[in-house]
């Protein structure tokens, strides 16, 4: 795996279609340099999960994803013994009159995402998504892995990573994570992008969008985010909005009308829609 200098990293990310600001670039740079997991927090839709995907693209490493949910346990995250296979092995040995042999071998091991990441030969990008959805007890399973990139299997011993994986954790802050987990990670809060960056993202994601239209749209989105909404639109929503409006404009709607008609792609809550329509004048006046 190559180690970029900082400037090159931003260019490489941009080449893969991700526009990271200076803070995020530094965070990724340090995560690669120090070999530490990177914990990303931020509002929904600012591109936390996408960081892992784009890292996998620019490094050429496999992306291994672990989606967290309430009730996730070590059998689903680390490893599990393949009991049916072991049982069949016993039966087979019995019918052939052979010795059963060792039943706790690697071939009877079911590798779950964390173990796969540790055993990946050339390293991998591991995404532990929405860690705040897992119960807090689950974080304890992660500590050994995040600290030393190793997993202990009582029957086999400790499995160490030959090449440490690149680990990205994301959290939506629905609950506070344990100090022990945070201490093992680098931390970065991804804020909503500033207008320039959002324009660049739109330019790359929505080909055919005129520069002036993009500018007005980004201005409108920035204003919408300042309203007291239940859910502020993220980057994904503004991209969808631009795409929708562009499709309507191609169908013959004038641009401002198209923007308003595609509003359902930006705001997905009835209460928020009403609030936005009440402020329509100031939001859309020069969009």
């Amino acid at each position, binding site marked *: 795996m190559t180690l970029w200098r900082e400037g090159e990293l931003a260019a490489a990310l941009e080449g893969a279609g991700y526009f990271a600001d200076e803070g995020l670039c530094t965070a990724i740079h340090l995560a690669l340099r120090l070999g530490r997991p990177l914990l990303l927090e931020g509002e929904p839709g600012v591109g936390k999960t996408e960081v892992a995907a784009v890292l996998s693209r620019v490094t050429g490493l496999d992306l291994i994803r672990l989606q967290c949910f309430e*009730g996730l*346990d070590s059998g689903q995250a680390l490893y599990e013994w393949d009991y049916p296979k072991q049982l069949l092995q016993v039966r087979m040995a019995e019918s052939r009159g052979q010795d059963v042999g060792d039943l706790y071998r690697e071939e009877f091991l079911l590798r779950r995402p964390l173990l796969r990441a540790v055993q990946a030969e050339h390293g991998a990008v591991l995404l532990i998504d929405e860690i705040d959805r897992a119960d807090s007890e689950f974080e304890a399973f992660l500590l050994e892995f995040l600290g030393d990139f190793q997993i202990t299997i009582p029957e086999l011993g400790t499995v160490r990573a030959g090449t440490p994986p690149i680990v990205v954790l994301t959290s939506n802050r629905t*609950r506070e994570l344990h*100090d022990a987990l945070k201490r093992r990670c680098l931390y970065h809060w991804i804020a909503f992008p500033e207008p320039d960056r959002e324009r660049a993202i739109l330019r790359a994601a929505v080909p055919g969008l005129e520069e002036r239209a993009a500018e007005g749209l980004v201005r409108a989105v920035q204003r919408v985010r300042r309203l007291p909404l239940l859910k502020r639109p993220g980057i994904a929503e503004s991209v969808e909005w631009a795409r929708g409006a562009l499709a309507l404009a191609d169908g013959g709607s004038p641009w401002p009308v198209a923007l308003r008609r595609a509003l359902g792609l930006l705001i997905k809550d009835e*209460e928020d829609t009403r609030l936005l329509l009440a402020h329509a004048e100031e939001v859309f006046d020069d969009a």
Partner: protein
Amino acid sequence: MPDPVAAGGGTRRQRDAAAALAADHLWGFLTALRGVGVPAAPTKRADLLRAIAESPPPDLTTLYWYARITLLQDVGDLPAFDRVFDAWFRQGGPAGEDPPPEGDDGEAPSPGGPGEDDPPREVRPGDGIDASTLSTYGTREFGRTGEGRHALMRTLEAAWPAVLPATPSRRRRPARSGDRLDVRHAWRRAHRHDGEIIELRRLARPPRPRRLLILVDVSGSLRLHTPDLLRVAHTALRAAPARTEVFTFGTRLTRITAALSHPHADQALRAVSGLVTDADGGTAIGAALARFLGNPRFAALARGALVIVLSDGLERGDCTPMVRATARLSRLGHRLVWWSPLACSPTYRPATRAMAAQLPSLDHLGGVRDLPTALAEVRRLPAVLSGPRHTAARRWSTLRPLGA
């Protein structure tokens, strides 16, 4: 330790001196951070030093990002962090800041620091729990419980577990009957019989109680009932300690789960009275509920929970914020139950503007003013939980309007 910000050209000795100076400065910065309560564990500090040593930051902005990414653990600490960084690096020294040298506690996070346990901590800057503009009357003693009440509270505590709603847990556990074979368990038992499987075990998803969220109104209009309402909350917390959250609201919002969890009721109430500074003050239900919902970590506590609001619903001024907050609370939670002391009276009708407007959002509106009425309402909960949603309005509209 080289610091390119300070280490320029010059002779070797000058460079060494500059490096020593830079190291001292960095050390002072780290100490000051600890002083303002931004905990930076030794491993995190070592990360910063490694980052600086391995790829020296070309400018101050990069140094800022290095420090922020390696040291910071919570976006809530960001303002304090920025202040300290500015004071030490952008203004050349600890201007106006007096970094109090911390004792000898090394890496131990400051008390009340993040991550002491799983739920968010009680009160912290930026949570929106700060004082509102309305007046407050300081703390209040809630009195002693007495023997008669103790007996009732024990009955209540025993009544809660049976009425709390449950969902199937996501995690399967061994059980007598279930939807999946527990091959792991069967396999382990087969070891004892030379690999012969003699009995099958199964896995089931055991019921897991839903969260119980209790919001207690402590404003002046409920003055007489507040101690008993808090005692009701205490019994719920004792019955399901891991799944219950209790907040009080008057002119501000206070999370009292930890304070109220003392096993002894009087001790718990004393702890609460020290924490709740707006008891018997003014009313701003809408604002308090909006503040609760505005904090994503609090709103997450209401998601899928049984939400019980103990309040008379007497809102001063415009009731729109309160109605909107109740509607959202109802959408977030599993059921929304409103217990009002006023509803104990047989002549009560939810006729005030606020109550009438929010009635369609409620699943049940019951009367609770003391422990016996609470016990009656708790026993009525299973019917509310098994029935359809938003039936409060229908039930109350079938009652004859007063004077008719």
